[in-house]
């Protein structure tokens, strides 16, 4: 393929894509020119597929056939971000946002809206896109999307994820063409350096500098790697990029190959992400067919190809040296640094490794220039950051905001607040390597440096919201269970440290904690931080340390008063039936596996706390909320 051919495909698809991007009135005019009266975008990301969005597509196809609709385009896209409302379906040019679709709903929308002369089925729209006066608000103007700025996710939920022509129409590969024909490898690196882009995988190392080191490293063979081993539980932005716009990653890796002088790249992706793996395979195949990967790309004389490697469920493989070991077919154990990967990485050759979200930022920087990028964000953290917001929050999903956006904006303005009238307690960022942010830091500008200052870290961008029902000792124990389980065992401080910390927390949760335990935790944590081999061990104590700092009173309540204020730690709780609420339906007594509940029909029951095994079956079965944990 030549540059002209690439431009031709881009031009032929541009109008189709623009219908999905611009304001309604113009979009309607534009739609008339594309040959499609309407376009229906259905999310085919993991979240919506899990709630059966593919059945919605099947039903649409069936209805179209029955109704003779042949001028409406169905597009299976990647993630729209608002995963809590899946399956999501958007109809352009109106920008009508249908949520929680079922095949029956799809049939209704086809019959009433998509058919010629039809109009929006208001009762199936996402309620927030409906104005009080009955008019429809374009979804881009609702709070969840209004405060966002989509750079890395620019094409997710916009293009058909398995169609390279749509990707090209949306702008993919334009940056590659510019880099190959209008820039030298050095000027590419300079552009990235000046943009101030820092790695989105966790540590925030300047991306341009990484490329520079790899470029100047000696060696005839060099490699470019993509870290798609998104192991932080609760983070799923990398997966969404791979599912929604896989070509943007292939393109950026090729640009890096040109810049550092590599001709081969590897993508290391979690096997737990089957859809992402499938779309990557499709994308690589299509790019090869178009000559956008392989020999003599776009006739430039530059050759580059990409291989896919699957992980096998080891969190430590997100660490760069472990990841490279794993690609080499070995146990994914980290090795000491230096030598750094830029000098001695994959197969002992100079290697540049970036994570998916970092790659997704490359093309916009090349196309729009470093000035544009460096004006977004804070002084030392440029650009945007994608957060995977989950846990006790209304709008669970993916949120991309400029660096420096406050937690308050993310949780209340975008996230819609905490459901069930509960109050916010803390948000965990950085997953098992990070820490919690208490309510008093709601207003700080979230960027790499500020988060470290308050004892947490950016990490890959998982943001788990916890409410008053979350016990901060239990959650620290949860993270330690994770790191103890995932510690590869190579270095002693991590292998034994995580185990001892977990045991101590277990002791505190089960009511056997002693005052001395808090001192012990700090001591073990210090040793782990200073002497573990890799970031997994060095950061494993963070969750417990930050929880102890911000929620120390919960730790002392567990140890001195033997109480769990949040009502989570089983050993510190007893179950009681509130006599005035109990109707004597006997359901709890019949389901109690320990026969600990006594009482006669239609009179209040009672739990024998000595017999009770605290399994929670009674609470699960009670229809009158009469059973409490105290």
């Amino acid at each position, binding site marked *: 393929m030549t540059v002209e051919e690439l431009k031709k495909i881009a031009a032929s698809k541009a109008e189709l894509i623009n219908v999905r991007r611009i304001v309604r009135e113009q979009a309607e005019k534009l739609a008339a020119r594309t040959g499609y009266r309407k376009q229906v975008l259905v999310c085919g990301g993991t979240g919506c597929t899990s709630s059966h969005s593919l059945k919605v597509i099947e039903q649409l196809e069936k209805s179209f056939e029955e109704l003779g609709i042949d001028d409406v385009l169905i597009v299976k896209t990647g993630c729209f971000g608002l995963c*809590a409302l899946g399956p999501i379906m958007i109809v352009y040019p109106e920008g009508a946002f249908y949520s929680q679709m079922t095949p029956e709903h799809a049939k209704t929308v086809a019959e009433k809206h998509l058919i010629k002369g039809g109009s929006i089925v208001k009762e199936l729209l996402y309620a927030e896109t409906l104005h009080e006066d009955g008019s429809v608000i374009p979804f881009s103007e609702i709070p969840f999307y209004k405060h966002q700025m989509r750079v890395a996710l620019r094409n997710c939920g916009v293009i058909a994820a398995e169609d390279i022509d749509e990707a090209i129409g949306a702008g993919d590969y334009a940056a590659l063409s510019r880099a190959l024909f209008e820039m030298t490898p050095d000027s590419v690196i300079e552009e990235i350096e000046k943009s101030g882009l820092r790695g989105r995988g966790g540590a925030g190392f300047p991306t341009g500098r990484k490329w520079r080191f790899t470029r100047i490293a000696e060696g005839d063979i060099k490699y470019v790697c993509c870290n798609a081993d998104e192991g932080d*539980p*609760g983070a799923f932005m990398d*997966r969404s990029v791979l599912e929604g716009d896989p070509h943007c990653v292939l393109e950026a890796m090729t640009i890096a190959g040109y810049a550092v002088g590599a001709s081969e790249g590897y993508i290391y992706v979690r096997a*737990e992400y089957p859809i992402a793996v499938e779309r990557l395979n499709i994308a690589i195949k299509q790019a090869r067919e178009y000559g956008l990967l392989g020999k003599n790309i776009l006739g430039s004389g530059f050759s580059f190809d990409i291989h896919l490697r699957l992980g096998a*469920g080891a969190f430590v493989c997100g660490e760069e040296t472990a990841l490279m070991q794993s690609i080499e077919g070995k146990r*994914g154990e980290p090795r000491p640094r230096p030598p750094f990967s830029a000098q001695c990485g994959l197969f002992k050759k100079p290697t540049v490794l970036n994570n998916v979200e970092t790659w997704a930022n490359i093309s916009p920087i090349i196309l729009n220039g470093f000035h544009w990028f460096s004006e977004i964000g804070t002084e030392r953290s440029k650009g945007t950051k994608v957060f995977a917001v*989950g846990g*006790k929050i209304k709008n669970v999903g993916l949120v991309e905001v400029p660096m420096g956006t406050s937690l308050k904006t993310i949780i209340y303005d975008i996230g819609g607040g905490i459901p069930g009238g509960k109050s916010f307690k803390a948000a965990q960022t950085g997953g098992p390597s990070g820490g919690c942010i208490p309510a008093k830091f709601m207003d700080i500008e979230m960027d790499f440096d500020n988060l470290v200052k308050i004892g947490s870290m950016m990490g890959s961008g998982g943001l788990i919201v916890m409410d008053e029902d979350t016990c901060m000792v239990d959650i620290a124990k*949860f993270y330690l269970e994770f790191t103890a389980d995932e510690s590869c065992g190579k270095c002693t401080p991590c292998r034994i440290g995580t185990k001892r910390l977990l045991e101590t927390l277990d002791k505190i949760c089960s009511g056997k904690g002693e005052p001395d335990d808090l001192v012990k935790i700090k001591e073990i944590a210090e040793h782990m931080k200073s002497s573990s081999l890799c970031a997994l061990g060095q950061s494993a104590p963070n969750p417990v340390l930050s929880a102890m700092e911000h929620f120390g009173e919960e730790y002392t309540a567990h140890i001195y008063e033997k109480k769990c204020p949040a009502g989570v730690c089983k050993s510190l709780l007893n179950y009681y039936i509130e006599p005035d609420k109990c109707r004597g339906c006997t359901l709890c007594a019949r389901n109690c596996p320990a026969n600990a509940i006594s009482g006669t029909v239609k009179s209040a029951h009672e739990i024998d706390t000595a017999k009770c095994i605290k399994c929670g079956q009674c609470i699960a079965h009670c229809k009158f909320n009469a059973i409490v944990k105290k």
Partner: protein
Amino acid sequence: MAQNLFEGTKEQLEQLLVCIESHRGEEGALMPVLHEAQNIYGYLPAEVQTVIAEQLNVPLAEVYGVATFYSRFSLTPKGKHIISICLGTACYVKGSDKILQAVERELRISCGNCTPDKKFSIESCRCVGACGLAPVMIIDGDVYGKLTEKDVKGILDKYMQD
């Protein structure tokens, strides 16, 4: 080891050899081969590891080392239906531990094990990325989301019948 008598078919062996052949000479071939071998046999018994070691010319100890390092590789056979409960953070704060307990209670086995009739295996996983549906459970690739303890029995019953 004796209780898990290995029964591989000729077809499976042929498939494995074809797969090894397609990766021959490739750097870092062991991981992709193990993935495919597990797909063919459902697990990685010592016999299969031996074939891989001989064919790829790597020490059996190294094959075993890699196979035991990664949690997705299993050295024991699994049940007909594989139940995987997400214990990632987003699911955990929404009570996925209680879902796991309910499944364990229902099937009378603990996580990581297989029922005596080889019908079900229970395992836990870390985040499948369907956090919007938390807490989630995956049975044979089908995702069940927004679960409560009460849903568990009804879902398992569907799989009990076949």
